[in-house]
């Protein structure tokens, strides 16, 4: 095995920020993806019966937050000091909280569409407007500090989802959309986005 192996379902879920970190850092990793039918077997092999798991030289680490914060620090994408790291975690956490309300697993297409629009109006847009305001006032290139962080990767990925499912909110977020586009065109990220499997969720 190479230095890094990530094990997760064949979907974005709690692994996507991890995959984006590797891409942005241009660090190789084995992107092990499995289907739902394999989960009962794989679950028993995982240290705490959950995924994602990152194997670092064969030693397993679980809990997605632990994984992506570790990699972000290793790759220089976790701010310049502990206060910046805290703000990065805050922005990531807010984005995670509001986007996790989207009914990814809903099977009824009509219900899914209605609920997704509602979640965008009631939860996602209010949070993004607050971030947009602070970000435009800061006149910075990235959400926190002077460098790309995993909060920017999370934002980019979230807005790509919104492009597909609720694009009507995006005109209210011009600076965040510009940031999204800056990040999606970064070398490494660009190639990953072009080649990643399309998620059905």
């Amino acid at each position, binding site marked *: 095995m190479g230095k890094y192996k990530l094990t997760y379902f064949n979907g974005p879920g709690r692994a996507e920020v991890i995959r984006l970190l590797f891409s942005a850092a241009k660090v190789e990793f084995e992107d092990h993806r499995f289907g739902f039918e394999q989960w009962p077997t794989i679950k028993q092999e995982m*240290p*705490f*019966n*959950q995924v994602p798991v990152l194997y670092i030289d064969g030693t397993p*680490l*679980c*809990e997605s*937050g*632990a*994984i992506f*914060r*570790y990699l972000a*620090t*290793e790759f220089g994408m976790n701010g310049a000091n*502990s*206060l910046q*790291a*805290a*703000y990065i*975690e*805050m922005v990531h*956490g*807010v984005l995670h*909280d509001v986007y996790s309300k989207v009914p990814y697993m809903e099977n009824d297409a009509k219900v899914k569409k209605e609920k997704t629009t509602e979640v965008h109006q009631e939860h996602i847009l*209010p*949070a993004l407007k*607050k971030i947009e305001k602070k970000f435009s006032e800061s006149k910075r290139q990235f959400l926190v500090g002077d460098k790309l962080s995993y909060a920017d990767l999370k934002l980019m990925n979230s807005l790509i989802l919104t492009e597909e499912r609720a694009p009507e909110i995006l005109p209210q977020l011009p600076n965040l959309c510009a940031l999204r586009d800056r990040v999606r065109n970064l070398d490494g990220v660009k190639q990953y986005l072009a080649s990643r499997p399309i998620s059905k969720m």
Partner: protein
Amino acid sequence: MPHYKLSYFDIYGRGEMVRLLFAAAKVEFEDERFTREQWKETYKKTTPFGYCPVLYIDGAPLCESGAIVRLLASKFGFNGANTVEEAHIAMFNGALRTMYVRLPNFDVDEQLKEEKTRVVYKDHILPLLEKIEKKFSDKKAEFLVGEKMSYADLRLMQYLIITERYDASLLAPFPNLVALKDRCRNTDGLKQYLATSKICPF
């Protein structure tokens, strides 16, 4: 030292870890607690994103409990000696939270709540504690990660105290974790805080 104010509900919830960190570090802070009604009417609109807890550091707000916990843990020396230890501390903390958060704290029907609680312990919490007990006893160390107490130990202590209050017999298979819990609760700072702090159901 900056002025710290924690603003949260009058429960453990997502705020108690922050309080425990201040206690363990013996750092003073303003422990602002409000009711649900006060949250809706007054406090919610003053927060950065409409969520709590919020930590005000010299008046500057920081929200998201994980961000707050990790910042204070780093500042106060409860976040390991290097990034690998930080990751393992976050792993134990996260794994424990994932299981304990399943407890039906808000259920109104007492019988249903008791049944669900038993199931959560049996299917989720106890299997996890068994795995952690094994890893910890293999390690033969004082604390879960590295050589010093970390917020993972505080999290374990917090949750095992909750379990102890509910049904101490559930902890019988985990003597090393029980010993760790007791080691932490008797450290200077935590001992005093736990002796006087409000006991909450969750």
